[in-house]
């Protein structure tokens, strides 16, 4: 349970979107174990205390840890679950930072944390803003196609 109700509510909303609970739990468990290892935690705490932007630095650190776990998983870690688990870890880190008195978590801080996490995470999955734009550009005709969207709607209802 997160101490900040805003963060806990966000965690509850993210939990609703988790598509692979087993992988999600494994990633969160392994990353938490890594972060709270005594030697690592001491070094992280020292770094955060000296940071000008702890939220951004923590986001980059979490992405780094997930990247390391992904390499250990030898290509079996799903991208989408890594994103969901990473954001969950980000919320936990924000709660910690608030308890340590380094940040005050409100709506603006939460949105900043989201932005920092996305900007740190997505390039490491190979998804930059340019590539995203290209993908959306290719997708646009499908979204405007009645026949194809009808098929998609049918698949959502379990028909495909």
């Amino acid at each position, binding site marked *: 349970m997160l101490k900040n*109700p*805003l963060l806990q*509510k966000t965690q509850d*909303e993210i939990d*609703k*979107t988790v*598509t692979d609970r087993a*992988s999600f739990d494994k990633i969160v468990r*392994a990353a938490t174990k*890594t972060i709270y290892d005594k030697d690592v935690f001491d*070094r*992280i705490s020292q*770094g955060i205390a*000296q940071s000008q932007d*702890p939220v951004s*630095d*923590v986001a980059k*650190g979490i*992405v*780094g840890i*997930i*990247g*390391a*776990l*992904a*390499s*250990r998983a030898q290509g*079996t870690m*799903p*991208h*989408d*679950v*890594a*994103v969901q688990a990473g*954001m969950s870890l980000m919320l936990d880190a924000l709660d910690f930072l608030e308890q340590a008195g380094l940040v005050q978590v*409100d*709506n603006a801080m*939460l*949105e900043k944390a*989201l932005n920092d996490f*996305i900007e*740190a995470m*997505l390039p490491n*999955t*190979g*998804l*930059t*803003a340019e590539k*995203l*734009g290209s993908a*959306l550009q*290719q997708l646009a*005709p*499908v*979204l405007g196609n*009645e*026949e*194809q969207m009808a098929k*998609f709607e049918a698949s*959502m209802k379990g028909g495909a």
Partner: protein
Amino acid sequence: MPAVAVLAGVAGATSLATAGVAGLGLFGTIGAIGGIVSAVGAVTGSKDLMKIGGIAALAGGVGAFATNQGWLASASATETAAGATQGGAIEAMKNAASGAEAVSPTAGLAEANLAQQEASGLFNADKLSPLGMESGTATAGLVDSTTDLMAQKNPLLDTSSSASITNPTDARLSLGTQTTLPPGSTFTLGANTLSPAGSGNSILDTLKGFGDWAEKNKTLASIGANFIGGAFDKRKAAEVDLLKAQTAALQQQAANANDVPKLGLKLTPKASIFRTQPVAYNAPMATGLFNAR
């Protein structure tokens, strides 16, 4: 030492892309982004984030489905393999759009080998990362490691074939689809609400631009809008307002819990606790069965 360098150093900052992460690939990632953006938007009450999350979840779901159907000309091997996990992107989209409970996990994903012993091995004194990097070689440029990784080619995304497709309409028609697109249904970087590619737009800016285009696109408005939920659904907007009010109440509750009341008791020794003036005593009216008239 900045925290990022500390964490990146001990973890051996590695790109998920270069580590060969399997799974949904591009559209799955977009769908997952939609999920977390919608979650934050629902809590903070930001309609912008709700819209961005909704459009990202829609794009992820439709993109994964379209790739599986072969409707997108530049499907990479990863996207083809994404068919098995397409359900994940679609479910993420459903949950982002309607706030439904999470469905059962996707099947077919290999178990991730994330043993705690391996995690603790990241901090072996002899090397800075589990990737066998020599001690000392990983220290240089740690702060810039993320930037360096971004410049690396991502083997999971077929960027070369993506670059060769300049007109999505021609590409789609080349696949044999005869349907003619209604005017204005193409989304072009630089021609709509977005700045040209490479101008430094963030991921969220790009999604917002796509959402703005989608909102103005009449065809999409009549077909796809129903899927976006949080962007166009008035019922969803009401849900957002309710969540916003609940969040405000929770925040106030937390503030009250943290607010120590100040007891401003003041003693005035000279003040008498006894009245100085007699007060008329009005006996309470007796009521009851015996006094009933």
